[in-house]
């Protein structure tokens, strides 16, 4: 890893600000988050790995956290920036509670707040290096949205970050439908996470699935997926070559 404390970027256009630092690369990263809407709310899955470059450094990182009463935030990318975002959201929810007016911030509002934060940081060339997934239910309305590190945000029935965009979204586009039951939703998420486990090098076989409904947030205990390696071509790849 480069020693950055005294490094001056060659193309710094700003005089007095050129000794402050900007995020240039992520260090400890989490891989994809996959989420979908189902009958009673939102289901979200993320593994518990924190990679330090190409080493799997931390294997018990919780990348999904409940926000207030109605939302669930999952993040991929730099873990320290995720912790910073949680700190901002903590303050936001606290101020909201202090009003004590019976109203509480729903997932749509939190998503909007996050979008503004991410976009403003990108405009200052100092991004929070995360791709966020924000899901929640308020007054019976399900909401699932995503924000990237440059501020691209949208809302959809199923979202994924990182590698999940390439591997999980094709499966979700084909197999997702309205009013999935809880078991079907979990089965679909596990299907996506299994493909990610096979094909994403930074994935780790220890995942959590989180559920958010009108009643609140439940994050499951960590568990692992079963994988299959007994193909005959894997066991005898040089068959017929000799």
């Amino acid at each position: 890893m480069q020693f950055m404390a005294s490094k001056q970027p060659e193309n710094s256009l700003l005089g007095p600000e050129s000794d402050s630092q900007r995020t240039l690369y992520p260090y400890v990263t989490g891989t994809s988050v996959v989420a979908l809407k189902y009958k009673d709310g939102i289901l979200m899955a993320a593994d518990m790995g924190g990679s330090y470059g190409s080493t799997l450094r931390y294997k018990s990182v919780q990348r999904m956290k409940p926000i207030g009463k109605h939302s669930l935030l999952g993040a991929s990318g730099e873990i320290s920036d995720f912790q910073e975002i949680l700190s901002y959201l903590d303050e936001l929810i606290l101020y909201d509670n202090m009003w004590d007016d019976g109203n509480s911030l729903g997932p749509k509002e939190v998503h909007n707040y996050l979008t503004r934060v991410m976009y403003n940081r990108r405009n200052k060339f100092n991004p929070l290096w995360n791709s966020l997934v924000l899901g929640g239910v308020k007054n019976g309305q399900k909401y699932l949205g995503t924000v990237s590190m440059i501020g691209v945000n949208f809302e959809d029935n199923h979202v994924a970050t990182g590698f999940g965009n390439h591997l999980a979204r094709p499966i979700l586009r084909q197999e997702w439908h309205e009013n999935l039951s809880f078991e079907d939703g979990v089965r679909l998420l596990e299907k996506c996470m299994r493909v990610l486990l096979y094909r994403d090098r930074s994935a780790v076989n220890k995942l959590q699935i989180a559920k958010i409904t009108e009643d609140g947030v439940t994050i499951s205990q960590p568990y692992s997926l079963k994988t299959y390696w007994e193909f005959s071509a894997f066991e005898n790849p040089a068959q017929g070559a000799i």
Partner: protein
Amino acid sequence: MSKSVIETPPKGGFSFDLCKRNEMLAKKGVNSPSFRKTGTTIVGLIFQDGVILGADTRATEGPIVCDKNCEKIHYMAPNIYCCGAGTAADTEAVTDMVSSQLQLHRYHTGRESRVVTALTLLKRHLFNYQGYVSAALVLGGVDVTGPHLHTIYPHGSTDTLPFATMGSGSLAAMAVFESNYREGLTRDEGIKLVTEAICSGIFNDLGSGSNVDICVITKGGKEYLRNHLQPNPRTYTSSKGYSFPKKTEVLLTKITPLKEKVEIIEGGGDVMEE
């Protein structure tokens, strides 16, 4: 003192002589023309009786679709076919070249070609050119030793797999394979799975599109299903067709059929024995 320069014939493989010049030109803003890539989804899988290969049919030149219905499944031998992704000229040329080499080899040995032979010929050629021949291939076939499926990368490395995908749409297709593949699929299940994987590439990857081509190879023979599925038909077609403006005066009508009838003489003439 005379400098003796020994003229050695070129040994083959890639000649790096102009690389420095190209780098210098690129720095000055003169870029070499881009290649016609096949930004593709190609797949293969082994089922109980043999191998099924699949490919989409879109060829791209940067952001433009230059061929809406090209053929990406190339013939290598009567029992071996090869799907190609990467630069279209490279995949065509390299598969044609190895196909001819295989035919000569068949005449020499008097036996059916083996998939590992095609594999070795391809990987030797690609390695020789150090990745500059930009061809990523999925090679499949059935020979005396059984069904085989291999992937070959532009630098010359190969893998032997039960199911494989290559090209820009490979992740979308691999997601379908990893979740739905199992050993011992029947022919119809295999075709259905390959079609699903190619469709996943067509609809989720911008570099792939148009139709689905399938090739089924078994011990008995091969079945090339060109445009097996056409999930992207023209949306609006005029039912009237083209009609000349009403005031056009017809002077002469002459119809020339474009297909000429060819007479086949049975028995007579020289027939090349294979």
